[in-house]
């Protein structure tokens, strides 16, 4: 009786039948509370709430959870018993058999569920089953249509040359801040040239600009620069930051470059140089394979945007951040915490990418591709045949050697005891000297991890008689032969179990068949004697005293003779012929294509791929559709997605891109979070200007070059960096653009390329395969090999972004590491020497002339008298000081900054 009052479940089950309320309270509710409530109350994962009988019967996306009286037909029971083919609950691990049995009994007894306060678990706002976007959310600034505001009226009409200026000036006038005058012509051309092509202007270009007095002079400079092939190299690289471009794979032991990755990089550069309209630029990168000809062939390489990142798990994240400024990746495990993006949206987009696959598009005629594949197959086939032959011969050799185990041991003993030299001992016993060497290392130096040699060592240690020692060796030999026989038998069993040769060859069958194994200790014995020796770093010797085979240094050749050796040699000669005949692999494009059967994904509840909820039809984002998103119907839906992204009704795409270009010119964005236009992103500092530019961008036919021009011809862009106390007092951070921003340090590529340019060592060739960084790379940095695993250390030091994640902004750190780079780096020293030599040749009229030339080359200005004097004094002290002087000029903050 005392027990009956106890609350221990084992007793309660006797006290209450499954149809009693007490049974529910003691045996059912606690199980639900511990295992189900976390997701099936307020969170209502899969639409299911287990808070009352009524709700449980109503169920969720997969139907009713319980059918009172029918445990077999109850989804809840199937799911917890894990007999359901798709749903298995709870995610933390299967319930105990007792708990499952209780649940079953409870359902069969009618699922008694007393009315209780479980409803209190539900927050009032989650009762609706559809994800609802509130009017406030819809009203958020970035989702509003781009209106095309007219530039406002301003007082200082002389300063405001362009629409951009009127938006900027209106705000300045409102704040009572006077904008700066135009920068000097030398500063302007240096600023424009570094901005657009990432190189300083040549002295000739500066002189031409100074000599051009027409009002169109600067526009002509801008047009010339936009027409330069170097424009695409500079601005294409920024795009590659967003596209997390690299030339190789991630997660490999050594860098494993893709020989053809550069085709995407070159496509980006070319697209920018051709001023490919941005809508087409977007469409190509997401769906070039689905475009009609001739665009399809022309833009196929653009698919590198999706294809080059290994695994491709981040495609939704990168695509939405890059094109839309939305962080849809945050909605993978739960509805977006801040923005109106349900988890379903994530899987709608993910379904598009999972219905697509990486595909190599050959850039050679089909016959050439086939010829290469055939030739490659022939090489592989021949290699396999050789390996098979070697393995067969090695196996029969091993069987022979096993029977000589005792002889080898005795010979080894005499060597270890110093009674005989290895050569002598081998010869005396008719053994192989090299194998004997392995035995010596094995018995003398190796820590032996099986017990079968214990007797042998014991006999030796106690100085046993020759006969006793021999007996121990022979006993060991018998063990070896027995273990080898046992292993053969096990392999026979496994062979049958795997279903013969076919199963053995199949990785998956091998992994999922339960196989027999040798006992561990016996395995170590066999491994020591015959296994392929593997030597993890730092180990001298690891098994395989009798091993011969395909491993380098363990060739079976010297044991072969007569027809065997002749056969092997003939096969090798044939292989060599085949290899010589194998042409280099045909070039191809890393692209994408649709899978044969595109498929919608189910929402992975809390990101768990084992726990799937409702189907998420492939479609665009809810927030960017007026009503329910229309499911995509063509193949994977990639082209439809691209069209949705560049649709005139989508306000984000143009806003995001004009801001990226603005940020490239001013160092700050109109939106300071260029890849996040959501609730947690920054609001635009000049919303009307942003929309004005977005409208102009679309109206110009999405021309990026027109946008650069529009921005650069403004007074806003052309102002000086001059400090002004009065303006700074009102707007110290220059949020209103009363002056230009000083660029304190060029980014990695511009800095490196500028050094080459002024030293006269730049190779201006455009496009082509990647080359390793290092002193030898004299091409522009955009052509350097970008490794996901082994980044170039100098480029990393200069804040080249990590290519494993999309990157929206460059860091520009200064600091002593940068100083050390300029002080000591070989590349810098070499460019300084080249610069000194260049100046010597180009300015033959003495030191002053040379100093002037260097200043024109590096800083686009003549030196002051004081600077000339400083240089002359430095150079006078030492004949060979020019390279060191040139290095100081390169290391100066003026060279790496832009005003």
């Amino acid at each position: 009786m005392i027990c009956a009052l106890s609350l221990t479940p084992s007793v309660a089950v006797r006290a209450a039948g499954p149809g009693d309320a007490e049974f529910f309270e003691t045996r059912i509710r606690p199980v639900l509370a511990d295992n189900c409530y976390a997701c099936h109350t307020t969170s209502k994962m899969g639409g299911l709430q287990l808070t009352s009988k009524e709700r449980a019967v109503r169920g969720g996306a997969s139907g009713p959870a319980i059918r009172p009286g029918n445990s077999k037909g109850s989804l809840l029971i199937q799911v917890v018993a894990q007999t359901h083919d798709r749903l298995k609950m709870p995610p933390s691990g299967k319930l105990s058999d007792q708990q499952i049995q209780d649940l079953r009994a409870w359902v069969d007894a009618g699922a008694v569920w007393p009315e209780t306060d479980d409803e209190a678990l539900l927050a009032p706002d989650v009762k609706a089953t559809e994800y609802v976007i509130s009017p406030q959310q819809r009203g958020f600034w970035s989702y509003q249509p781009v209106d095309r505001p007219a530039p406002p009226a301003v007082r200082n009409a002389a300063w405001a040359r362009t629409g951009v200026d009127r938006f900027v000036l209106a705000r300045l006038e409102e704040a009572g801040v006077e904008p700066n005058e135009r920068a000097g012509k030398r500063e302007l051309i240096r600023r424009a040239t570094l901005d657009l092509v990432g190189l300083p202007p040549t002295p000739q270009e500066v002189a031409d600009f100074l000599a051009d007095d027409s009002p169109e002079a600067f526009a002509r400079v801008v047009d010339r620069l936009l027409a330069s092939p170097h424009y695409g190299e500079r601005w294409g690289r920024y795009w590659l930051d967003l596209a997390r471009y690299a030339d190789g794979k991630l997660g490999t032991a050594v860098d494993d470059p893709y020989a053809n990755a550069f085709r995407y990089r070159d496509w980006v550069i070319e697209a920018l140089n051709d001023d490919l309209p941005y809508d087409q630029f977007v469409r190509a990168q997401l769906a070039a394979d689905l475009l009609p000809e001739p665009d399809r062939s022309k833009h196929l390489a653009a698919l590198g945007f999706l294809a080059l990142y290994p695994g491709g798990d981040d495609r939704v994240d990168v695509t939405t951040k890059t094109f839309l400024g939305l962080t849809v990746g945050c909605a993978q495990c739960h509805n977006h915490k801040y923005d109106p993006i349900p988890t379903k949206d994530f899987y709608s987009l993910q379904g598009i990418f999972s219905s697509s696959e990486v595909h190599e598009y050959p850039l050679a005629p089909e016959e050439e591709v086939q010829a290469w594949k055939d030739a490659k197959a022939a090489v592989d086939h021949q290699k396999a045949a050789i390996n098979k032959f070697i393995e067969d011969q090695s196996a029969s050799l091993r069987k022979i050697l096993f029977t000589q185990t005792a002889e080898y041991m005795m010979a080894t003993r005499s060597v270890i005891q110093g009674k005989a030299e290895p050569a002598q001992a081998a010869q005396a016993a008719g053994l192989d000297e090299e194998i004997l060497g392995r035995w010596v290392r094995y018995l003398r130096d190796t820590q032996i991890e099986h017990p079968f040699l214990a007797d042998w060592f014991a006999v030796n240690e106690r100085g046993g008689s020759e006969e006793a020692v021999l007996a121990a060796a022979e006993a060991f030999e018998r063990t070896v032969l027995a273990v080898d026989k046992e292993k053969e038998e096990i392999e026979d069993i496994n062979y049958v179990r795997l279903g013969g040769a076919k199963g053995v060859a199949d990785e998956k069958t091998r992994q999922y068949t339960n196989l027999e194994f040798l006992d561990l200790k016996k395995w170590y014995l066999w491994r020591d004697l015959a296994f392929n020796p593997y030597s993890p770093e730092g180990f001298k010797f690891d098994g395989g005293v009798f091993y011969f085979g395909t491993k380098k240094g363990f060739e079976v050749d010297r044991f072969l003779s007569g027809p065997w050796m002749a056969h092997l040699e003939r096969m090798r000669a044939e292989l060599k012929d085949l290899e010589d005949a194998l042409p280099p692999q045909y070039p191809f494009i890393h692209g994408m294509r649709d899978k044969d059967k595109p498929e919608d994904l189910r929402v992975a509840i809390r990101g768990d791929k084992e726990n799937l909820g409702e189907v998420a039809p492939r479609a665009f984002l809810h927030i960017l559709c007026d009503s329910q998103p229309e499911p995509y119907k063509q193949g994977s839906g990639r082209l439809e997605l691209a069209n949705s992204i560049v649709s005139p009704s989508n306000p984000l795409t143009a806003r995001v891109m004009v801001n990226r270009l603005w940020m490239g010119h001013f160092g700050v964005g109109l939106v300071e979070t260029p890849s996040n236009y959501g609730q947690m992103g920054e609001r635009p500092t000049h919303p009307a200007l942003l929309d004005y530019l977005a409208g102009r961008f679309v109206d110009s036919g999405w021309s990026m070059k027109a946008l650069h021009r529009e921005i650069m011809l403004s007074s806003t862009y052309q102002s000086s960096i001059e400090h002004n106390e009065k303006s700074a007092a009102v707007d110290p951070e220059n949020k209103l653009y009363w002056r230009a921003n000083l660029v304190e340090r060029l980014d990695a590529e511009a800095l490196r390329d500028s050094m080459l340019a002024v030293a006269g060592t730049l190779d201006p060739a455009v496009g082509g395969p990647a080359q390793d960084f290092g002193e030898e790379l004299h091409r522009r940095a955009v052509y350097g090999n970008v490794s996901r695993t082994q980044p170039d250390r100098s480029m990393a030091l200069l804040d080249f972004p990590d290519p494993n994640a999309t990157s929206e902004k460059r860091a520009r750190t200064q600091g002593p590491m940068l100083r050390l780079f300029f002080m000591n780096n070989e590349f810098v020293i070499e460019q300084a020497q080249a610069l000194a030599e260049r100046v010597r040749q180009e300015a033959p009229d003495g030191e002053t002339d040379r100093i002037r030339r260097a200043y024109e080359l590096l800083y686009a200005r003549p030196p002051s008298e004081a600077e000339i004097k400083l240089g002359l004094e430095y150079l006078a002290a030492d004949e060979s000081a020019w390279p060191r002087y040139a290095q100081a000029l390169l290391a100066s903050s003026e060279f790496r900054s832009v005003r």
Partner: protein
Amino acid sequence: MTRRDALKVMGAGFGSVGLARTLAANPMTQAPHFAPRAKNVIFLFLNGGLSQVDTFDPKPELQKRDGEPMPGPKIKTDRAAGSLMKSPFAFRKRGQSGIEVAEIFDKLGDAIDDFCVIRSCYSDNGNHGPSLMLMNCGHQLPGRPSLGSWVTYGLGTENQNLPGFVVLCPGYPVMGPVLWSSAFLPNSYQGAYIPNGESDPEKLLQNIRNHAMTADQQQRQLELLDKLDSHYLDRLGYQPQLEASIQSMEVAYRMQTEAPEVFDIAKESAATRERYGDTDFGRGCLMSLRLVEHGVRMVQVYYGNFQPWDSHDDILVHGKLARQVDGPIAALVADLKERGLFDETLLVIGSEFGRTPMIQNSGLEKIGKGRDHNVPGYTTLMAGGGIKGGITYGATDDFGFKAVENPVHPHDMHATMLHLLGLDHTKLTYRYSGRDFRLTDVAGNVIHDILA
């Protein structure tokens, strides 16, 4: 060379501008959120996956049921798992605490009273890459700052002439530099990667020595450079930001002499070097000692390139690996103590996940005796500043498969490490792309039970 000497060497030309600017090579020391228990971190990473059941988590039941299938419902592992396989290594109670340690960690066993053995670690992903990312950056995909970056961001560094966060590996572990990336934190918090396959410090350190000129010539050149910059600043007029960001040449100049000395293990006695052994890992441990001694905030030593502890084919390889790290780890503990650093240094030894108690089913052709990746349960060791030594924390099930008592996620590990350094993991945030980011995302609990 003291700082005053350096100033003298650099001469007056430097003083005029140089002194006016900030001297910081690295962000200066910053105040922690509360009183720290440790100042520095040494993280020894046994990359590839340290088997818990063969090292620090003995399982008698596993020994008993060798060769039997794992009881219970079918469990999820990366590949099909075979039967249970007992450990080939013997365990023995060690130290005052009597914590059982496998024979292959004999010397570490002697020092076990200094360690807290966390036996209930678990992770989220069975592949090396994502789990390495989680353990190092708190997130499975690239794009988040590493632990070391957060630590130096939070605390700055003690020695302005050395990087605050140093990573040692002869080549690269799987994933490579994303494991010590500063991601969106400023680049100065990125781990300074030093390929310690070299022992010549001039080859270890980037741009540390000039081979094109003498020291006198360089000194003159730097004086010239300082004047060039002065002229430029005059020309620009008022540009306080640039002025502040043009860092002093003095620091860089001194780094050239100081940094190579600190990295030079030849400065240690032959006897000391012998105790660490002439392996990459041994040299790495000794270097980490010297680095924290000289005020480096965090040092991470990867055992080796790629993933040497990934014993799929043969768990006996663990024996060889362990015997190679055992001595250096014990030597490091002893030397940290002798040099008075043990109480202010947090020592962590671990890997991205553990290994299955079951044999890995590797097939007919290659009958091996290895173990697969084990994510639900593995072991990490902690010692030093603020850690309760000589205890175990948490437990796995009878077979060492799954953490069943006090499970510890990498987020919890990170929260605890930051806590010991005086940082509240919920307050150590950085605003990027419109959001406050944390190392521990929205999770992580400090494990108070292991704190001294």
